């Protein structure tokens, strides 16, 4: 499967790469996308959000693969990180983003080689980077996220995500899939219906919490979630729908679930805001509640990595088959070998 072609087909030009854990194969998946894009003749723009300047993994002592950028590709990275890269550049622009590794620059690869991407740490910086990469002609803008950081997976930043799932999270296929499920489920949450969007629209626009009961919508400040939504005077047993603009965490929902025995429609802003453990999902659905997102973010593919940096390897076919069972329509592939296994299972 050519993952870049799939993205082009769907009109997904800005893609975030997210790992279920560190060393899950995210950067390798990114490298595979770059090669696929080159086959299409598309210019890629590259940036990374998260920790800075890693050539070596300081925790596990394993070299983290830098990304190989072909000639003509565009990169956004801190100046000193680019100077450490093997590639050679035509320096295009200094962005108004400072970092410990110097000013963040936009550059075009003149002579191909590995590049170190660093210096972009906030969503607003990713937005600036994507805007400039596109202005300089990038057909695809690829955002490499730090491990378990879904900061880049915001609908206003990117059009789709690639999830990297790897053997580093477990010694068996079952363990790996179990670990990946919460991340996957975030992005498989259904979109909120139009009908409910109309009812909760004012809360969404105001970025506040929306409580919908028989008397209609009541807005309360978003910070109410910190102290328990149900502690707010506006909360009544009558509420049967809830919009949460911020992080939807286990503790936020625990508070709600304790107070609300009747089925509740819960809406999060987008998948990156849903930070639930598997147990919470279970309790949620067992009680008959539904969880959806205002703006979904499609998954372009799941990149399965059977190799663990701890020294063991899982059987590729078995890993991909197990992921296929839970992936639904999302294609599962080995980014390192560019083999696709399409999924048709249910959550």
């Amino acid at each position, binding site marked *: 499967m050519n993952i870049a072609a799939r993205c082009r087909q769907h009109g997904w030009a800005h893609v975030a790469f997210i790992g279920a854990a560190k060393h899950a194969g995210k950067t390798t998946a990114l490298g595979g996308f770059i090669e696929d894009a080159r086959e299409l003749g598309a210019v890629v723009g590259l940036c990374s959000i998260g920790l800075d300047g890693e050539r070596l993994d300081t925790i596990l002592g394993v070299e983290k693969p830098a990304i190989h950028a072909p000639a003509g590709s565009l990169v956004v990275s801190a100046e000193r990180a680019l100077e450490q890269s093997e590639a050679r550049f035509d320096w295009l622009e200094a962005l108004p983003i400072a970092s410990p590794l110097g000013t963040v620059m936009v550059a075009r690869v003149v002579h191909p080689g590995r590049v170190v991407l660093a210096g972009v740490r906030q969503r607003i910086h990713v937005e600036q980077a994507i805007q400039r990469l596109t202005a300089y002609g990038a057909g695809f803008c690829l955002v490499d996220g730090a491990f378990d950081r879904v900061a880049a997976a915001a609908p206003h930043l990117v059009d789709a995500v690639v999830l990297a799932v790897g053997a580093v999270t477990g010694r068996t296929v079952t363990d790996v899939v179990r670990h990946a499920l919460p991340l996957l489920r975030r992005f498989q949450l259904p979109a909120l219906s139009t009908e409910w969007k109309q009812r909760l629209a004012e809360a969404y626009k105001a970025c506040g919490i929306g409580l919908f009961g028989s008397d209609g919508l009541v807005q309360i400040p978003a910070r109410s979630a910190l102290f328990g939504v149900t502690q707010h005077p506006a909360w009544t047993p009558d509420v049967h729908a809830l919009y949460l603009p911020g992080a939807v965490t286990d503790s936020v929902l625990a508070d709600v679930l304790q107070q609300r025995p009747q089925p509740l429609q819960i809406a999060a802003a987008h998948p990156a805001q849903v930070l639930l453990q598997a147990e919470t999902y279970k309790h949620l659905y067992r009680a008959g509640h539904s969880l959806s997102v205002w703006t979904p973010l499609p998954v372009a593919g799941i990149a399965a990595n*059977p190799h663990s940096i701890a020294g063991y390897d899982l059987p590729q076919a078995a890993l991909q088959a197990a992921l296929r069972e839970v992936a639904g329509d999302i294609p599962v592939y080995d980014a390192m070998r560019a083999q696709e296994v399409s999924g048709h299972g249910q959550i």
Partner: protein
Amino acid sequence: MARSDSAEDLVQTFRHTQVFCDEDTQRSVAWFDVWQLFAPGTVYGSANKQALQPFRPGEEAAWQRALEELGKDAERLADADLAGLQATLVAIPDITDVLPRLCTPGNLLSPSQLLGLKRFVLTGAELAASLTAQGMAWTPPDLWSALSAPFGGDHTRTFAIDHVAGVEYAQAAQAYTASLGRLASAIRERDAAWQTRTGVRPTRDSLLTLALPEHKGLADTLKHDPGLLWLRDTPFESVFEVLPTAATAEAQQLVGEAESVLAALEHACMQRLANELHALYPSWREAVEAVAELDVRLAKVRLLQRWQGAVPLRGDALRLVAGVHPLRADTATGRPFVPIHLEPVSGVNVLCGSNMGGKTVAMQTVVLCQLLTQYALPVPAQGFTSGLFAAVRFAAAAETDSHNGLSSFGREVARLTAVWRDLESAESALCCFDEPGRSTNPVEGEALAVGLVRALREDGRHKLCFVATHFTAPVQEQGIATFRVRGLRADALAAVTAEASLTERLAYLEQAMDYRLERLDWADIPREALRIAEWLGIPEEVLVNTRGFLQRGK
């Protein structure tokens, strides 16, 4: 890239000019806020603005030249020209951090620094080539040609070593790229061979895995293959590292050699570039100063246009034509601000009139125009003529200073004393005293005002003084000029119906005031207060007794 003036910057800027104009005076006329309106658009212009000093007596020739340059720039620059130059100017990058590195030979520059320098030069050349800048007699194009020479004549707004390196570098880069390609081919061939042999293609990490138990036999055989390094068996797979072949090893070595050659050429190129740029350091400084100067000139014209103001003229006597205080004019709500015309005499000028703010604003406007003039800036007036003063002071009407525990009168005396001391040491001065004596009892307050007027009149040094007062006695002194705020129009009060409320009357009163200043040949304070008080509805009993006192004097 512009930098706004912080309060601290402003205090620092003006501390050195304290003999010329102290902080209290600046505060009284809202100088800091007006100064913010003079806004260069680049860091260079902003730095130049911070370093600006007022022209002092003895510097008339330079001051005249600065005013003439402003006048010519104002005539020459249409709105479109000004906007075009400014749009180009604000795009110029900030190289102030790079210049110190250029100063010292041998300092290598980073790619972002070189990109900044190149863009600076290209933008400067673009400005210099514009007809408008040429009309302003800005820098010669040669300056920018010389600065762009080290960049190899490339006019793209990007920087790459390829632009400035020679043929040898290009060849080395091609050789490096070719070696990477040969390595990639060798690896592909190697991996294809393993796939043919085992049915499995090695990963990008050069790992080859065979599933167990189905491929156990092959795995056991491969454990002895010299082309592989067996790593481990897991319950599921046998894992091998694919070793380099002769071809991949040779290709890898060639990559290393090519990379070393390229790196050495890069370093040599960057060193040469740094040396050439260093040799042009004086020209870089000249270019930066030129950009700063242009930015300031444009900012002055912009200010002139904003105020629809005038270029000050040099003259022996001060004359203000249709002046307005820009901040008062900007915040006036729906009512036209009355421009001020004033032709004071040398010596003491007393302003009298109703106590409704016209006198204070008049003096503030005069002082503000004088300060702007001495910085060779435009003035918010249709005309302003003046000379240079060594000192400018404004003693505002006293308020209680709760921080220092000073009463209003204490503060007033302290301020008057401080101003007087400053005037004693200044060879020439413009000074304003707003309602002296107001903060104490009327008898002694009036006496104080008279004392001040006489002392100022008797001081033989070159001074232009204004004293605003609502006392009668100071106005009747000899040897002074008297001006008054016209005050209430004669027929104004009759225009309001008897049914109008107090609020309506107060609002109308403000509208009915004539704030124009007029020179008086006879000395008399306009007496409107009782008429106004009666119109506003003061109790009849109070009014009768007040009139009785005025008639009988007790």
